[in-house]
């Protein structure tokens, strides 16, 4: 049995929680986000006939009032950085978080998750910017919490990256 800790980071209200809500096993309420600053969920996936438990630390969204506790990142094997495609600023927050996370725990596999793909026409982030990250070697996923697009794939990809790493 393999267990991996992964963290999900992003600006406030980018849809981190709603992104995974229906795909994970959860016993804790949303309240944990605002009190402890983290909610731990679990995602079971099967990769090459191996069972992997992804222990998902859904960290409270970063905004002007509350910072993400970097100590929560300790021991993580991978990260999701969630960006709200309709808000340009959330990309900056995500990149900043990525930088700080790397300083705190070193380089770990990560995926840039551009959320709210269902509202693609309202996106403030253009396709070229997204592709630019991909060209630089980053793994990019365009997801939709509403339709579930690419959510499973995101988990799977990150797991694969962690198992290779």
């Amino acid at each position: 049995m393999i267990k991996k800790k992964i963290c999900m980071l992003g600006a406030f209200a980018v849809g981190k929680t709603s992104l995974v809500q229906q795909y994970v096993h959860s016993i804790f309420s949303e309240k944990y986000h605002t009190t402890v600053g983290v909610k731990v969920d679990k995602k079971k996936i099967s990769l090459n006939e191996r069972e992997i438990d992804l222990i998902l630390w859904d960290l409270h969204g970063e905004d002007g009032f509350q910072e993400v506790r970097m100590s929560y990142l300790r021991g993580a094997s991978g990260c999701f950085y969630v960006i709200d495609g309709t808000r340009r600023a959330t990309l900056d927050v995500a990149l900043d978080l990525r930088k700080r996370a790397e300083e705190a725990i070193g380089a770990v596999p990560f995926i840039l998750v551009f959320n709210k793909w269902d509202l693609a026409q309202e996106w403030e982030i253009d396709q070229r910017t997204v592709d630019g990250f991909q060209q630089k070697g980053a793994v990019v996923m365009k997801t939709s919490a509403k339709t579930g697009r690419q959510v499973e794939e995101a988990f799977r990809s990150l797991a694969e990256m962690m198992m290779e790493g």
Partner: protein
Amino acid sequence: MLPPTTLKTRSMKDSGNPPPKEPIAARSKDQPEEPLHELRSLLLGPEQQELEGLRQRLDDAGRRAEEISRVLPTAISLREAKDNKIARALAPTIDESIKASVKKNPKVLAEAIFPALGPGIRKAISSTIMGMIQSLNQLLNHSFSVRGLKWRWEALRTRKPFAEVLLLHTLVFQVEQIFLIHRETGLVLQHVESKEAMVQDPDLVSGMLSAIQDFVKDSFQTREGETLETLRMGGGRSVWIEDGPQALLAAVIRGTPPLDLRVTLKELLERVHLGYSDAFERFDGDVSPFSGLRDQLDEGLQFQIKETKARISPMLWVLLFAVVAAFCMWSFYALRSHLRWEKYLRRINAEGGLVITQTGKEGGKYFISGFRDPLAKDPESLLKEVAIDSSDVMSYWKPYHALDHELVLQRARSILIPPDTVLLTLSDETLVAEGTASGGWIKTFRTRALYIPGISAYDDTMLEDVDMDRLARSIEELKAMTLTFPLAGAQVGEGQKPALQSLLAKVRDIQSLQTLFKIPVEIVITGHTDNSGTEGLNLPLSHSRAKNVFDYLVMNGVNPEHISTRGVGTRAPLQKGSTPEDRRRNRAVSFDAFLLDSPEGMSP
């Protein structure tokens, strides 16, 4: 090019092996090879031989194997001390060999592991049974008591499982779960739980637990080593966290544990660190190396149950006593009534004229049915004798004629009504009559005897037929009797004994006849004196003489009824003359007798 060939040939002859490459490379550059070669062999001869020897050793697979076999065990243990790469490298091979061996002959492996399998299975079974017993015991202990019912109600009210409510009340403490958490990642390496515990997903709990640890550390700026040690919750539950360099031990505890549990947990964590330090170091998400820790962690799942004193309430004692007393009373009465009933049945069986056909008990009452001769003893009176209330017994008696000796005789008596002078006896089925009876009764006897059930013959040879003449004759004979007395004496004279005897017989005869005929006979005893002496003396003397005779008769069993005495002195002399003989005969008593009432058809 010749010389090198020669060299090659020679060297091949020497060793039988291909020559080293180096000399060949050198040859192409240097022309004067022969002297150089000679020099070389002079200078390096021993080394060359040694080298040759080494090559031979390397090329000879058999020798190499032998050499490796010498150092292999040491090498393995050296490497094993460093890390367990050998074990990991060998694991697939061993797996395959075991598979192959099992495939080939499963018996070999089965036999090999048999000694280890037995104790293992036993241990597993016994621990399972212990667990079951623990749960069952508590359940049984509390299921039926008043307290148990109260707790059931509580469980219903609070919608908690009964087992949980039970634990809440009976446990001093119980370690419900133990998490071994990797310090760095917050991942659960191993988790154990007691049977009664309600368990949430350990991975999530452990994640949040380490998050909270971090939260506390960050929020309160604690120093190194100052970690969250205890989380306390309502409902008497707490989480004790033991912090180690590489792993945490979190114990979820219900109740109030003793402080030395802390020490137990610490020691447990230390032991885990001692054995798994490398595994912690190398941990990359694979928790399988920690599966062996289950048993160790299980040891930490301690519990202590409140000692429930077996206190029995006084009411229960009273109740118990009452029940026992009631049972004893009931048994006593039941036994007594049974014994009495048995006695009653024995009595009835012993009694003639009563035949039991069925007995038993019905609706709490005894019943008895059978045959009863009308002359037999009343069964009701027998019930009274053995002190059984007749209202407790239902009796069904059918009348019949018993042929018991006694009852046949009784029946004969009740039918024939024999006079007192007749004695009836039964010999087999023959009715025997003895004594005296009137001719009329004898006639009745002869006609009726054979109609009496149980009698087939009669015998009256010993029966004397008597009639009224006989009585009249006897009275006459009595009247003729006298008894003489000495001069001035009130006692019967000497030589009068035979006369007294015959008097007695006669009186008895008369009395028995009067019974037979049912006619009372009055007997008068009259005392006389001679004419000597004064009348004043003679009268009481004569009276005394009569009285003495009367006493004699009564003393000898004669019925005093209808016998009277009188003294007449000289007034009614038996002899008129005054000769000495006359006087002697007048010193006497005389007897008179007469029928008081004439029987029918008979004149006095």
